[in-house]
């Protein structure tokens, strides 16, 4: 399982580094979305740092949806799917590898968007740095959950539109926990409850993925 996970992780990152979809498509989308958030708040509230954490995570969720789709679409071209299927890879390993690759991409994106929220939405830099550990864990949980939901919807009718319908409600608690822990970091508040939510979500999704990804792949 671990060997397969590392193989798939390196393969996914290599594909991303060569295709540069993250650099040329996803990041510009994320930055534009942050700008739109400022515009939506209106000129007198655009620099409202108290909205910063929530808006950062909202944009990150939308970015994550794009990246989850991308992560799955790489596997689903007809020739790729058939030839990789004959390798008989351990599905739990595939799940872990793809989740880790997606998490790595989300961490890179998240750090850039965090910088964006400091600059564009006037979120406190000190608070953003303090929030970094919770951002890392929230994005890891998003990646693991996203890999599962991506596999659930790939290949079906309207896969790209079905993914948000299934995944966004499930991401809501992660959004809440992420935003609350980010705000707590800004305001020196208590964060144990949010870390509990994030840890439970990350553990549960990882366990479910290891157990059931094979069932989805068999589909």
């Amino acid at each position: 399982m671990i060997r397969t996970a590392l193989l798939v992780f390196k393969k996914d990152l290599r594909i991303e580094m060569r295709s540069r979809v993250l650099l040329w498509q996803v990041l510009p989308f994320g930055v534009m979305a942050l700008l739109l958030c400022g515009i939506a708040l209106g000129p007198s509230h655009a620099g409202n740092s108290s909205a910063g954490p929530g808006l950062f995570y909202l944009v990150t969720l939308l970015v994550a949806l794009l990246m989850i789709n991308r992560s799955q679409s790489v596997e689903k071209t007809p020739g790729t799917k058939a030839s990789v299927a004959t390798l008989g890879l351990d599905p739990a390993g595939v799940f872990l590898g793809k989740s880790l690759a997606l998490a790595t991409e989300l961490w890179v994106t998240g750090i850039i968007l965090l910088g964006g929220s400091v600059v564009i939405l006037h979120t406190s830099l000190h608070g953003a740095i303090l929030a970094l550990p919770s951002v890392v864990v929230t994005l890891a949980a998003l990646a693991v959950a996203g890999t599962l939901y991506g596999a659930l919807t790939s290949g079906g009718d309207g896969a790209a539109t079905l993914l948000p319908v299934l995944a966004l409600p499930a991401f809501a608690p992660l959004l809440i926990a992420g935003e609350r822990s980010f705000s707590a970091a800004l305001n020196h508040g208590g964060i144990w409850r949010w870390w509990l939510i994030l840890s439970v979500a990350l553990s549960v999704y990882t366990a479910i993925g290891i157990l059931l990804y094979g069932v989805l792949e068999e589909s």
Partner: protein
Amino acid sequence: MKQLSQRLFGPLTLIAMGATLALGLWVVPPDQVQGELGRLVYIHPSVAWVALYVSFGTSAIASALYLWKRTRSEVMDRVAYCAMEVSVVFIALTLITGSIWGRPAWGVWWVWDARLTSSAILGVLALGYLALRRANDDVQLRARRSAVFAVLVAINVPIIHFSVQWWKTLHQGATVFTSNRTLLIHGSQAWTLLISFIAFTMLFFWLLRYRYRLEVQRENLAGASLEEALASRRREGTQ
């Protein structure tokens, strides 16, 4: 014996629902604080109980049984699907009755209260399950993916519940018991509430039974179409 109990279940459900409505709307005195509005306590909590625990639970258990090879069968897939469909109806009723109750109490149709918000999120998840069913024509593929998703939904219920609860709550506190298990309501109110829980639970299983029957008939019809499709396909080869 089985047929008799099946035949009696419908009329018994009707009696239980009738008793709930009669007791709740006329017999039991109005609430001391909320007046006539308080009569919604005999509908809203029961409907929410069925939506969030009974129907989701039924769908999740049937889905888990489908995923386990030993108990995998079309019956489990059908039960999971039908239970989730009925669940959507009950979640909608939960939100509607909650809004009707909330409007006079809070002044607005919607507030960002923990339970309402959780219910809305779970409602979208249930709709997502139905959307997932429609996205795949292949029977086995559809059954597997739906089962995995239903298990994920079930796991999400406590995660969503606690995250939203800790985020914010405006909702009425415990309706029936305090945190140290002291009964809050008494006498006829308590009995009527108990009857309403039983009645709506029976209503769920009654609806589930008929929805299941409809699904079996739909599949039988599809099976008949399959024979025609096979015959037509074979004829292509001889032309």
